[in-house]
Structures are given as structure tokens and as C-alpha cells.
């Protein structure tokens, strides 16, 4: 039965890609094999349009223990400890079902952390919605925030920071980027590798259902007007089962029973088994008949592509199956051997004794197509950079303007959001949400670490290269004003349709700017995610390369927070104030303009300013510090006056 043309199209596989598949297999693929190729070669799993440009980001550094290519990045922070962190996007599912889309986004990013052997200790998120008056925005915000709270609070990992941003370019496509950070002993890092031919492959966690089938390719599909019919593919999360899965896995990590582990994320059982085998050049043999199921009559196609949540795949040392099974049963979880590691480099799927699919692992991983998509400088750029200053007359009432800015959706207090997140569980949160970065102490040491997630997408729209560099510089500033030394980056690159040359140009330019800033500020990228096709009926989102960054504080007593502390203290502004108003929040809120020349960024000056600030805080002579971002100096000083919990304190600026 050869595969029909429309089945191939429906799987998002192009003519050329189909011919490649024929070459890899030396025969026609069956329906299950087409399904496997379609998810493994989807944009989400293969990064086929972004890989050529991702190569230009720096990923090495003396403290980098694991860079991109694994489930999360790992950096050394001394005292025999390492930080594990990553950011992941769940944009499309959240637009369809906000609560479950956001909740499963949190569940997925947590699994990426503890699959490396680490206990997750913090969650952050970066959310972007349409304008506040857009009919869908209210429902989306409520659902997404409740989903993040519902999942994060239940599993007991504090949600300590993040950002929320409203802009019309996200009217048709909200962004939900979830970041998680974990701590692991340097010598107990686990990796997603199918090591040891003959070792059993064990399925642990919830049973498999039909949810989320083709979630991976859905993420790579452009939403048409009636995007909603994709409903049945939304996954439902169970944070209670994830908590059991977390504790059971942490128990297994204290033993030497396993050689590899990976969570089942996008493309579920398929991507986890293929990627684990691919990393070590082994093959893997799976029998779908052994996979625990939640529904009857599921075809191999459904079992292999299901994205049911809270499931992990383990490679167990031969003979330790019962020991591992015992640990999971203690936590009332399924733990079943469903296959074994082979040496023939093939991904072979059985159903009982019949073979239903057989594909070379390399065809699915290294063999995935790579596209050097055409680039074209967008036409809008020259127009958007023109700003007729005559239109921008000086306001009569500066106080009124400041109050309007402080009340505007992108600057006002986020307390109504983060008070729904348990941000204190685990009693490590030293600096609570509300400032640029959250700070957590490391019990047993007098160190702490700071985390932030940040991006100004308007700068990236009017000048992608400078905007990309500013995204990195601003994230670093957030850490530095807390007194933390920036160490490494995880990025979530949210863009429109890569098949449109101007979007691809935005992507390339943003990454070029990010790469320069990462190199200059010596913060390598150790993990990340690419989310493309964020576009509805031809209108793409603003380029949003969200930057998550982690920094280290050597002495938890020597930190700074945003609020002014005492009368008589001196306010110092470090850096140059240039005559730059392009792309500012002031222009947007007061004059409704999204235009102008993007503020310039002098990376060597930036580096000097950041190290001066760090040295001052380290010398204990700084009580509070704040970076100037949306709303500029006026908003920064105002926020420092009103954000303390001992009531407002005044300030005079000469």
C-alpha cells in the first residue's frame, strides 16, 4: 500500500523530503514510518531552518559542563555543584487551550531538568499576549497564569521570576516560554544516551493516551484563520504524577542502575528513543505492545507519536530492571521494559512479534534536512526608522506622562500575577519576584544564584541585530544589579514563518547580534529552543529572541535589590545618556508610535559598566541598584522609590 500524496502533505513532508526518505529506506515508507519522519524532521525537533544560524552562537566556556545537544545545559558553580537550566516554548498549545498549554509547558521544562539528574529549584516564564483590549487577551492571560500556577505550585518548585508583555503583534499568537533551573552534584550528571548494547529500555510514568498526537508538527504549522480545529491535539498535564515521577527519578539517580534517561517531550516515545540512540550511534528496539496504555485499540502510530505527559524513558543496566521497577512502584508509577538497545543503528518498532517500522537512526537525526533559507532585508525597516521629531512634541505635563507610563500594561506592577505563584516553597528565595532578577541561596554554602528572562521585541523589530545584542545585555544587567556575575544563557527564539525571506533575515540578524553580545560579555549559550511559524494569516509576531540567563553570587550577604533604602543615600547613574528615543515605551504609550532608530549598544562600554557595578556591590557600598529599561531613567528612579515594602521613599534628581 504506497502512501498517497495527500497523506504525505498532511504530514508536512515536502516532495524533496519524501525522495530523501526513499533513499534512506531503499523502499517506500509505511504510514507509521511517515509519521515518525514527519515528527523527527519537523522544525520543532530538527531545527532544519535555524541550524545554520545557531552555529554562530558561542557555546563553550571554562565553566560549561554540557552545552547544547542534550536535554538541558549544565554549568559548574564550584563547591562540587552545577546548575542545570533551559527554556522551552509552548506557544501553539497555549493559544488553543491556555490552562493546559501553559501547564504542560511547565511540566515539560521540569522534566528536561530532572532528566539530567538535577533537582529542579526554580521556574521562570516569559509571556507575550496581544493588546489588553483584544477580545482573546483576557481569557488567555487568566488561563496561562492559572496553568503555570496550577502545575508549578502543585509540584513544589517555586516560580520566582519572569516577564509579561502586551503588543498587537501577538494578537493572533501568544508566547508562553517556560524556563527551569536545577541543582546537581558535578559528578552525578545523567545524560540522554542509550549506552550498552543489550541493556533494557524501560518506560516509566503515566499511561499513554491519544493526547497531543502530532503536537510536534502542529508547532511547526502556521495557524490559518480557523486554527481551532486542531483541538484534539492538546495535551493534559497531571502535576501530582509529575511530582511522583520527580521523586522516583531522584531516588534512581542515587543508584548506579541506569546508563541513560530522557523525558518524553514533543513527539513522545519516538523522539526520546531515537535521540538517545542517536547520541551514541546505537540502535533501539521497541515493542509497542508492551507500552502501558490508557485507552484500548491504539494503533502503533498513535502509541509512538502520542504526547501524553509525565513519561520518561530509561536505559537500565542489564539485571537491574527489578531494582528500578521497585523504586517506581513505591511511588505508584508504571515501570515496564518495552525494548532494548541494539548495535545495528536501527530504530526498529515491533508489535508483539511483527515488525511495524525499521528506520536507520542516523536518517532521523543527522539525516534530517537542513535548509539555508533565502534571506531578504525587510522593506518595512527603512520606513520604521524614520521618526519625525516634530510629531513628538514635548509634553506639557511631565508628571502626567510618568504616571501614565507607570500604569501602562508593559511597566505596571506584576504582583497580581506572581502572587498566584508559590515563589517561596523550598525556603531558598532570598530576593522575591518583582525586580529584574530573582535570587536563590544555596543551602550548605554562603553562595546564591540569580536568574532572569528578558527580551525587548520592539528593538528586535526595528533593528534585529542591535535588538538581539540588547536582549543579551539587558538580561546581564538584570543579574548584575542584583550583584550576580552572569555565567551562561539559555534562549527561546520565537519568530514567524521561516519560509518568508524577511523573517529569516530577522532571525539571522538577531542571532548575529546575540552572538556578539554573548562573546563580549562571555556568557555562552548552553541550551535553548527555537519556535518558528508564530504567525496568523500572514501577520508574524515581532521577533522575540527571549534570553534566559543565570549568574552567581559569591556571598549571599553582598547583594543589592531595587528599592531605595535610606534617606540621604546618593543616587549614581553609570553609563552615557544619549539622545535616543527610538522604539521606546514612551513613544508607544504616549504617542502610539512603534518607530525610530534603535538605541545604540557599545558592548565594551557595557562590559565596563557591568563590572564596575558588580565591584561596587561586592565592596558592600551599594544598597540598591536598578537597570534603565522600559520607561528609561524616570521609570527606573520611580520604581526604586515605590517598590520597597516599608512605604515609598522620595528622590531628587539634578
Amino acid at each position, binding site marked *: 500500500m504506497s502512501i498517497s500524496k495527500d497523506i504525505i502533505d498532511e504530514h508536512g513532508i515536502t516532495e524533496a523530503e519524501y525522495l530523501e526518505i526513499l533513499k534512506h529506506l531503499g523502499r517506500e515508507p509505511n504510514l507509521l514510518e511517515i509519521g515518525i519522519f514527519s515528527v523527527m524532521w519537523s522544525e520543532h525537533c530538527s531545527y532544519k531552518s535555524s541550524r545554520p544560524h545557531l552555529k554562530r552562537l558561542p557555546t563553550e566556556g571554562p565553566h560549561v559542563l554540557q552545552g547544547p545537544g542534550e536535554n538541558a545545559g549544565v554549568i559548574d558553580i564550584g563547591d562540587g555543584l552545577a546548575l542545570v537550566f533551559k527554556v522551552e516554548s509552548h506557544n501553539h498549545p497555549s493559544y488553543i487551550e491556555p490552562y493546559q498549554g501553559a501547564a504542560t509547558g511547565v511540566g515539560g521544562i521540569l522534566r528536561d531538568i530532572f532528566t539530567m539528574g538535577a533537582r529542579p529549584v526554580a521556574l521562570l516564564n516569559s509571556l507575550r499576549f496581544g493588546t489588553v483590549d483584544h477580545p482573546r487577551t483576557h481569557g488567555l492571560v487568566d488561563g496561562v497564569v492559572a496553568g503555570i500556577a496550577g502545575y508549578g505550585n502543585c509540584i513544589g518548585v517555586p516560580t520566582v521570576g519572569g516577564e509579561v508583555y502586551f503588543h498587537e503583534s501577538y494578537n493572533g499568537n501568544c508566547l508562553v516560554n517556560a524556563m527551569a533551573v536545577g541543582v546537581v552534584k558535578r559528578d552525578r550528571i545523567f545524560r540522554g544516551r542509550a549506552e550498552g548494547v543489550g541493556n533494557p529500555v524501560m518506560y516509566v510514568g503515566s499511561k499513554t*493516551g491519544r493526547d497531543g498526537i502530532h503536537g510536534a508538527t502542529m508547532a511547526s504549522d502556521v495557524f490559518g484563520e480557523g486554527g481551532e480545529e486542531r483541538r484534539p491535539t492538546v495535551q*493534559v498535564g497531571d*502535576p*501530582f*504524577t509529575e511530582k511522583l515521577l520527580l521523586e522516583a527519578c531522584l531516588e534512581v539517580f542515587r543508584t548506579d542502575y541506569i546508563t541513560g534517561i530522557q523525558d518524553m517531550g514533543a513527539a513522545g516515545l519516538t523522539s526520546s528513543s531515537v535521540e538517545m540512540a542517536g547520541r551514541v550511534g546505537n540502535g533501539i528496539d521497541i515493542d509497542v505492545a508492551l507500552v502501558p496504555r490508557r*485507552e484500548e485499540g491504539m494503533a502503533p502510530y498513535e502509541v509512538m507519536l502520542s504526547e501524553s*505527559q509525565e513519561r520518561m524513558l530509561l536505559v537500565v543496566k542489564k539485571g537491574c530492571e527489578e531494582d528500578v521497577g521497585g523504586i517506581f512502584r513505591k511511588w505508584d508509577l508504571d515501570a515496564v521494559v518495552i525494548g532494548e538497545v541494539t548495535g545495528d543503528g536501527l530504530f526498529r518498532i515491533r508489535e508483539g512479534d511483527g515488525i511495524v517500522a525499521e528506520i536507520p537512526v542516523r536518517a532521523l537525526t543527522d539525516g534530517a534536512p537542513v535548509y539555508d533559507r533565502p534571506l531578504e532585508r525587510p522593506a518595512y525597516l527603512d520606513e520604521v526608522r524614520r521618526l519625525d521629531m516634530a510629531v513628538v512634541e514635548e509634553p506639557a505635563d511631565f508628571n502626567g506622562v510618568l504616571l501614565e507610563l507607570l500604569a501602562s500594561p508593559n511597566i505596571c506592577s506584576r504582583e497580581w500575577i506572581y502572587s498566584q505563584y508559590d515563589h517561596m516553597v523550598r525556603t531558598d528565595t532570598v530576593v522575591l519576584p518583582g525586580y529584574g532578577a530573582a535570587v536563590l541561596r544555596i543551602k550548605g554554602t554562603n553562595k546564591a544564584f540569580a536568574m532572569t528572562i528578558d527580551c525587548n521585541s520592539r528593538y528586535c523589530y526595528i533593528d534585529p541585530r542591535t535588538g538581539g545584542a540588547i536582549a543579551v545585555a539587558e538580561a546581564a544587567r538584570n543579574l548584575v544589579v542584583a550583584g550576580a556575575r552572569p555565567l551562561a544563557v539559555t534562549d527561546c527564539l520565537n519568530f514567524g514563518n521561516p519560509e518568508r525571506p524577511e523573517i529569516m533575515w530577522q532571525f539571522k540578524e538577531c542571532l548575529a547580534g546575540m552572538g556578539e553580545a554573548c562573546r563580549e560579555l562571555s556568557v555562552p549559550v548552553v541550551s535553548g529552543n527555537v519556535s518558528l511559524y508564530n504567525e496568523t494569516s500572514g501577520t508574524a509576531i515581532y521577533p522575540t529572541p527571549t534570553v534566559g540567563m543565570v549568574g552567581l553570587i559569591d556571598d549571599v550577604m553582598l547583594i543589592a535589590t531595587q528599592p531605595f533604602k535610606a534617606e540621604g543615600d546618593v543616587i549614581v547613574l553609570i553609563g552615557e545618556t544619549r539622545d535616543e528615543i527610538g522604539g521606546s515605551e514612551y513613544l508607544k504609550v504616549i504617542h502610539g508610535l512603534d518607530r525610530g532608530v534603535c538605541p545604540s549598544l557599545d558592548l565594551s562600554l557595557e562590559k565596563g559598566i557591568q563590572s564596575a557595578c558588580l565591584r561596587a556591590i561586592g565592596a558592600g557600598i551599594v544598597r540598591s541598584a536598578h537597570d534603565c529599561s522600559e520607561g528609561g531613567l524616570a521609570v527606573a528612579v520611580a520604581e526604586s522609590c515605590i517598590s520597597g515594602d516599608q512605604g515609598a521613599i522620595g528622590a531628587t534628581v539634578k
Partner: protein
Amino acid sequence: MKVEIFITLKKGVLDPQGKAVERALKSMGYEDVKDLRIGKLIEMEIPGDSMEGTERKVQEMCEKLLANPVIEDYNFKID
């Protein structure tokens, strides 16, 4: 008119709460309980007009607010 609305999860949609309660009942000795699902029961009074008028109103309320069309089904009784 007394209205009772029953909101249930669509078939195939995972019901973590139902799963946990079923497991608890089994551990309490009720081994033979199967397919336990938990939904919402919404009761209200809508005074006034005809049966069709009320039916149309309840339909609209469920579509717009009370049921999440992505993962829930609804039905109702009016008397």
C-alpha cells in the same frame, strides 16, 4: 425554572483527578470501581419565559462560559 447543567471531560481527555480518586477507592477496598471521571454540576434558577427560551439561554451560557469547548462536553436538564 430549575436548571441542572452537567459538564464532563471529553472521552480520551486525561482526568488526573478521576485517576487519583479511583486509586484511593481501590486502596480502601472498593476494588471493582472502574472508569471513574469527575465533572462539574451547576445548578441555578432562571425565572420567567418559555422552555425554548430557557433552553436557548442555557445553551449559550454553556458555549460561552460554563464549558471549555476544547476539553469538555455539556448537557442539561430543565424542570
